């Protein structure tokens, strides 16, 4: 009877030649250097790290090794620092159509399934909320999202609103006042961005941002003496053209919300 061959009979494991080892070692060294730079510069990079990261970007960003290649903290590996941007957000787009019908959409839409699909839209809403902190980029997502939605509806105008869902404080959980203890209560939502969206007949999108009273320069003494008594920018404000695509020069590496 012929003995069953074992893996050892097939041959010894092939070892790389010194030349191959040399080339592979060189690749490993360069690769690990790039990875180390990309990861080490995730939190508060120095000027040198920032420069190296930019130089190595064609490699590390293409392979998605750079944890933060965007204008805002994309993958929040710190999870939370209790910053204003470290909360979940929702985007509301509302419009009144020419036939009088009122339409609205909330992003993420309620009831999205599976959970992974909801994660994409939550990430999108959180990105828009984080970019609100950055004057240069804050209008990019509201403009494209609301513009696309209004065009699809055939509307000529509407509004886009970004709300942050503020978390409960520890002591609020046991509060007898249900408006405080209910995490979905109105007091736990804060509008951080609101704009009117105009769709021209050619499909051009214009965004007119509503600005909070505190952000507007006073034009007379009476106005200067008034104090803004509501942080919601939507309620009582003159409007101001958003800088939504006209900025020039290199984009700032600043990440707005900080990471």
């Amino acid at each position, binding site marked *: 009877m012929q003995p069953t061959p074992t893996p050892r009979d097939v041959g010894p494991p092939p070892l790389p030649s010194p030349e191959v080892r040399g080339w592979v070692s060189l690749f490993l060294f360069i690769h690990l250097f790039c990875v180390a730079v990309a990861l080490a510069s995730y939190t508060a990079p120095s000027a040198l790290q920032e420069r190296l990261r930019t130089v190595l970007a064609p490699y590390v960003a293409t392979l998605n090794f750079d944890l933060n290649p*965007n204008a805002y903290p994309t993958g929040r590996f710190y999870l939370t620092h209790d910053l204003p941007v470290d909360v979940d957000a929702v985007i509301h787009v509302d419009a009144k159509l020419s036939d009088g019908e009122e339409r609205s959409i909330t992003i993420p839409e309620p009831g999205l399934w599976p959970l992974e699909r909801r994660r994409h839209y939550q990430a999108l809403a959180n*990105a828009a909320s984080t970019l609100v902190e950055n004057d240069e980029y804050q209008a990019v997502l509201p403009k494209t999202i609301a513009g696309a939605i209004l065009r699809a509806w055939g509307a000529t105008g509407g509004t886009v609103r970004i709300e942050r869902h503020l978390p409960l404080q520890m002591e609020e959980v046991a509060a007898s006042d249900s408006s405080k203890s209910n995490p979905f209560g109105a007091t736990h939502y804060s509008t951080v961005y609101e704009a009117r969206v105009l769709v021209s007949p050619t499909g051009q999108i214009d965004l007119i941002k509503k600005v909070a009273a505190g952000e507007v320069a006073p034009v007379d003494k009476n106005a200067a003496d008034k104090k803004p008594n509501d942080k919601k920018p939507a309620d009582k404000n003159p409007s101001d053209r958003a800088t939504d695509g006209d900025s020039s020069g290199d984009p700032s590496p600043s990440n707005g919300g900080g990471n």
Partner: protein
Amino acid sequence: MQCGVANYFRSLVDGVADGWNRFWFTPSDPYPLGLIRLLTGCLATLLHLTLLPDVGRLFAAGGWLPPEAVDRLTIRGGSTSLFDLFSSPGELTAIHVLGLAVLVFFTLGFWSRLTSILALIVILSDVHRGPMLTSQFEPVLTMVMCYLCLGPSGASWSLDRLLARRRATTPVARAAAESSTPSWAATVSVRLIQVHLALLMATMGGAKIFGATWWVGSAVWWLASRPESRLVDLTGLGEYAINFWTHAIVAVELSFPILVWSRLLRPLLLTLAALVWISLALLTGQITFALMMIVASLSFCSPAWLRGCCRKADPAA
């Protein structure tokens, strides 16, 4: 004296070179790579599949995320995506279905050498086409998929191996098909996953202690009190429990990159890390991220142990 210094540096260089060669090039059993490929493929397929219903709305011409807006927000480049080449909903759906087929082949281990590279291209295209739809999961997924391209990831748990076994006619060829021949490419692949994962854990731990919430022990509260994300409402936990949980997460993330290299402590660290990922999935709803971290951690498990665990499911093991 000079001779002593020269000898020291000579022995230092020799020692480092020996250690480097042993660490990276000692041939090893590729069995873990096959298992990691199978599980990573399932998660990659899920990611791609969940984008499929929305490709028209998000990526088509006039969609929510036009390439110009994505380019504007991607400040460090790297936004190359296959999906930039297509703009109509029909084309995008067709190319996504094609990508889905590639990912299914990759998961099943069919033409693994080729499909592992194609699958990486598909997932990178997803990520670069809509980076604002991503979170912590995608960087870990692409990292593991990238390293799976380097090693024989089809050597186990794959159709490739099944087909090779059927085709084998001689006893030697059958033995070769039924065994996983140790290879240095498998070692390089597994080691890269290990090193990158350890660096990533250090980055995560370091990023956390940069903020006060992780020092004062309240970070878990701020995660638990986000009703949109969390899977389970854990706001009823006491303050001490919140503090302990917060400190435990940081302790595991900071100790993992150092202690996981100790054979004695490795099982303990891997168990604690798995518990941390599961707990974070409950807190943040990031299930795929937690699963991906656990899958990547399998690279630290010995092939013999994994074979023992998987014997029932995989008779070839």
